[in-house]
């Protein structure tokens, strides 16, 4: 397992859970008030899923765990997550 990555690496793993592109979604840290795209937040992976931390204060923002019983998404450390409203988040060329 590699050391920490960033939110760019969430694009694939969260593509089945989110209907938007997680890399450009902006999260507001409930602990310190920092707001930035998930792409710019540190991400720690494990065999089960991903933990996104605040780049400024290191609080856990979001936990995404996939199990045979289903997908668990905890947004415990986020005041909000802002993402594009259109249903189709695809980046087109």
């Amino acid at each position, binding site marked *: 397992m590699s050391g920490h990555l*960033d939110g*760019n690496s969430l694009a*694939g793993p969260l593509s*089945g859970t989110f209907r938007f592109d997680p890399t*450009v979604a902006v999260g507001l840290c409930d602990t310190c008030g920092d707001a930035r795209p998930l792409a710019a937040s540190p991400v720690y992976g494990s065999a089960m*899923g991903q933990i996104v931390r605040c780049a400024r204060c290191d609080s856990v923002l979001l936990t995404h765990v996939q199990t045979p019983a289903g997908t668990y998404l905890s947004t415990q450390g986020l005041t909000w997550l802002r993402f594009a409203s259109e249903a189709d988040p695809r980046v087109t*060329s």
Partner: protein
Amino acid sequence: MARGTVRPLVVENTAAIRGDTVARPVATWLPATITAAVPLTERSRSLRLVVPGWRGNVPGQHVDIRLTAPDGYQAVRSYSLATSGPGEHIELAIDRLPDGEVSPYLVDVAEVGDKVEVRGPLGGWFVWRPGDPRPVQMIAGGSGVVPFVAMIRAREAAPAGNPFRLLYSVRSPAAAMYRDYLEHSPVGTTVNWIYTRNPPPGSSRPAGRLTSIDLDSHVIPVEQDPLTFVCGSTGFAERVSQMLIERGHPASMIRIERYGDSR
């Protein structure tokens, strides 16, 4: 694929794939076939794949690659796209980590005709959109150059445009991925090289890690409002982005992609 101790990063799960695949095609695993494999350096090569159903991508995006062993064991890794635009053909470039699980397979074992699965295109943040008027500075460490090759190729295809600069840090000339392409001055892009171990004979800069002096000499200055992309191992990306911030580059104008690190 050798069965390693590393578990797959993604555990496939019915909830994740039950979604509307028309609205969420990006979550779908597409079967792909390797059509070409070209050595780039002694430890890396490019792979071309045909992916039926691929809908094109913008420069800077990546894919997830899933390998399945005969016993059903699966491993997933992310790889940047070296190409962009429409069509069903894509190019990746993989650097072998000696103790890695997936990269040695992709560099040494996989053959033309072999099948893998591809999920993508992924990520809309670490991208360059043709037509963006800002000057672009790219800073790469090792295999972090791959998404920049897609951007430079797209910049070449654009009729006119903003200046591109690439600062590429590698151990030695022989370790540089896409060296032939980058040394032949792609239209619109200036390339500067940093050699960390073995510089070519006659170079004035001693071997060593990229420093703030290198940034001052080669990076588009802050006054020109560049969009600065940094890509490479996590340690490289952190160090370089820290130096950029210290030199006054606003964080909002720096895009970073971290590939991982040994710990």
